[in-house]
């Protein structure tokens, strides 16, 4: 008995059965099977590729910036390089990060990240203009890190500090760029 809606001359028989024939049913089965197996196999692949995105970041430690007295009478922001131990994939590395120590209007010593909150360039201090001026897209910040002009959505990011045994310590963190509020991302 012929279940195929296709006639011997190759034309589709309009009076043929409405349900799919053996060939199209098997074709559908193969398609569904291939998609299912593919989807199942892609789970470990996706997990593998997403590992660094989903893995928990390690807690950052406190880094020494120097004796607190050193910064009590500064008139301009002072750049300090701190070394932090960082996991970068499979390697543990000591990476250097630039920090600016400055004083706010209240006279308090503050530590600022040198990473621009706009698109992540490193910001230098311009002594002649007494401003921080980002070399990439000309974001301008005052000596205490407040936004003066340009495209950055917020002031320079202040880092958590503490004084321990007369030493100023900072906790280095990364913040999300291009958002008006400070969001820690790692």
């Amino acid at each position: 008995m012929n279940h195929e809606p296709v006639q011997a001359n190759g034309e589709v028989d309009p009076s043929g059965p409405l349900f799919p024939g053996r060939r199209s049913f098997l074709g559908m089965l193969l398609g569904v099977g291939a998609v299912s197996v593919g989807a199942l196999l892609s789970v470990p692949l996706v997990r593998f590729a997403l590992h660094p995105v989903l893995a928990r970041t390690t807690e950052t430690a406190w880094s020494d910036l120097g004796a607190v007295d050193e910064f009590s009478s500064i008139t301009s922001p002072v750049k300090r390089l701190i070394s932090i131990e960082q996991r970068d994939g499979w390697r543990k590395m000591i990476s250097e990060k630039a920090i600016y120590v400055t004083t706010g209007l209240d006279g308090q010593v503050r530590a600022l990240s040198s990473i621009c909150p706009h698109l992540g360039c490193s910001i230098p201090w311009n002594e002649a203009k007494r401003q921080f001026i980002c070399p990439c897209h000309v974001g301008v910040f005052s000596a205490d890190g407040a936004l003066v002009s340009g495209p950055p959505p917020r002031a320079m990011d202040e880092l958590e500090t503490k004084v321990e045994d007369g030493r100023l310590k900072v906790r280095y963190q990364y913040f999300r760029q291009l958002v008006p509020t400070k969001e820690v991302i790692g």
Partner: protein
Amino acid sequence: MATMIDDATATVGARRRGRVFNWFDRRVGIGSLLHEALDEPIPGGERLAYVFGSGLLFLFLSQIITGVFLALYYVPSADHAHTTIAYITKEVMAGSFLRSLHSYGSSAMVVVLILHVMQTFLYGSYKGRRELLWVSGCVLFALVIGMAFTGYLLPWDMKAYFATTVGTNIAGEVPLVGESIKRLMRGGNDMGTLTLSRFFVAHVFLIPAAIFGFVAIHVYLFRKAGAAGPMSEDPIRPTQKTERFYPRQVLMDMGFRLLLIAALGLLAYFVPVELGPKADPADTQYLPRPEWYYLPVFQWLKY
């Protein structure tokens, strides 16, 4: 009668082509392949304006060849990338030349790509049943820009580091999924060795594979729709006298390819591409500037 004449012509043709060709032709079908490839009718005949697509394919092949050779020495890790590029540039014989050819070749691809799109647009070659041809071209455009973007980071110098920092931060601006895309591209929050290996995989495996696929689709769809002809031609129902692709258009294409490789070769030889200092995010004195084709975006980001 007509069959007899055809047979006679075929015999004369076969005799002229020689025994070796005929041996292969009977087994592989080179004759019909060459006929398909070379005898494509072009309405209105050959034009210099049609050389850009073929030029792009040539540049892509040149990038593959130089890229494969660069990969002999390059190591995609933050520890070694800059050192291996310095080794290629300073120590390996012809290393600076090959690297410069690869680097200038990427810029040339962007230039010729823009010329190809402009020609297609001005000549109305996208009209008729060519929607998918245009769309596949748009995908190829994005893939070529993706190649330029991912390749840029690989030397791991200051310029590369900051260009990619800015680029991935821009990707982070995509609504809802931006932050995840950024982290996926970087392989974490920060730029590091995982970013480099991801960009390397995209640059060497993923995007080239996609380009191969889309070039095949693009060429197939082009041949299926047929050449659109000059500006004065109706791209849907061509009426002008046709000229075969070989020899005149092929010669023009070859001439353009020669011009391209000669220009790139001279540039690579006399003005070799420099390698900047190793990426150091703590350096606040570095003045990052993007590649020339990103300058409009660079300016736009200041507002």
